[in-house]
């Protein structure tokens, strides 16, 4: 056989072999591998190159490949089974900042300068050293800061406010086409979408994007951006209506001279007020 044909065939078979070997090594993202995995990948790559160029015999090449695939897999397995092995293989995370103070010895042991630390913290949006309570370097070299509690982003929990749970929205129209499957998963029919579009006075061909949120309201984006669409304000309107009714009941309670009616009006206005408090997170957000 011609030499070029030999190299061609070897390359193809090694391509498949290396692909299988890398799949065997596991599903890690290249940014998440530790230095040792990295060396393993490089050795497999170099061996494959040498084998396909006929610089080492196939048999020797296979031995090298086998060792560099089998050992990492075995080590991974051990790391899952035992915590000691895990630390030995993957290393241990290093605490770089504790109680707001930089741990200089640990910084030295991971060979980082103060500048490096500041740069890494900045990339995590911690520009001010005083904001960081705790920071740790993970085994893959990433630095994760934990901010002081008064510098953390405010959540609804901090504000003591209840918020309505929201499921993911479903896209029901795209590029002027109706998407039947998401519609069906919401328990809606194409007729429903057509009638909603009719209500807004929009043709389906004009819709670039249509989404249904978890409360069943439809949001549209049109190809023609000059057209102003009324965004659904049904919930806000509902809240306003109930609020107005509540105010009316209070007025009635004041106006009437009938004792029984007065009691009825104030009881119901109280009821409506409680209801409004309960509905507020669901209707106004």
């Amino acid at each position: 056989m011609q030499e070029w044909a030999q190299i061609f065939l070897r390359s193809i078979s090694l391509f498949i072999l290396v692909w299988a070997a890398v799949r065997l090594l596991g599903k890690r993202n290249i940014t998440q591998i530790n230095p040792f995995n990295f060396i393993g990948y490089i050795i497999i790559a170099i061996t494959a190159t040498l084998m396909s160029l006929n610089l080492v015999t196939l048999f020797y090449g296979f031995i090298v490949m086998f060792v560099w695939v089998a050992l990492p897999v075995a080590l991974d397995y051990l790391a899952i089974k035992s915590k000691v092995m895990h630390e030995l293989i993957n290393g241990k995370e290093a605490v770089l900042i504790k109680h707001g103070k930089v741990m200089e010895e640990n910084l030295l042991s991971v060979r980082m300068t103060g500048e490096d630390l500041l740069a890494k913290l900045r990339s995590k949006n911690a520009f001010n050293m005083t904001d960081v309570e705790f920071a740790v370097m993970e085994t893959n070299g990433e630095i994760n800061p934990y901010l002081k509690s008064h510098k953390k982003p405010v959540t609804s929990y901090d504000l003591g406010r209840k918020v309505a749970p929201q499921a993911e929205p479903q896209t029901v129209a795209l590029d002027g086409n109706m998407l039947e499957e998401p519609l069906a998963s919401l328990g809606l029919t194409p007729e429903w979408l057509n009638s909603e579009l009719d209500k807004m006075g929009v043709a389906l061909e004009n819709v670039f994007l249509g989404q249904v949120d978890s409360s069943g309201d439809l949001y549209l984006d049109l190809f023609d951006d000059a057209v102003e669409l009324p965004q659904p304000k049904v919930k806000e309107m509902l809240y306003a209506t109930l609020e107005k009714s509540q105010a009316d009941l209070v007025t009635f309670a004041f106006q009437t001279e009938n004792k029984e009616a007065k009691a009825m009006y104030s009881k119901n206005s109280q009821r409506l007020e409680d209801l409004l408090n309960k509905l507020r997170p669901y209707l106004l957000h």
Partner: protein
Amino acid sequence: MTVASQVKQTLASLKGAQGTLRVYSTQTRDEETRSVFTEALEETHTIIKDLENRLKTLEFEEPQYKGN
């Protein structure tokens, strides 16, 4: 405007709100939210009942404005 017609107006807007609540209590996907809407629906229902009863009495007291 008489008292009866004022009550009638409030009753009408409450009934409108009840309709919207009914729509949301069926089309909302989240279980918890749906139960809140259903509860609100029942609550408005009792309020509407009370107001309707009051309206009957009012119309009996001032029959000349009946139907306004």
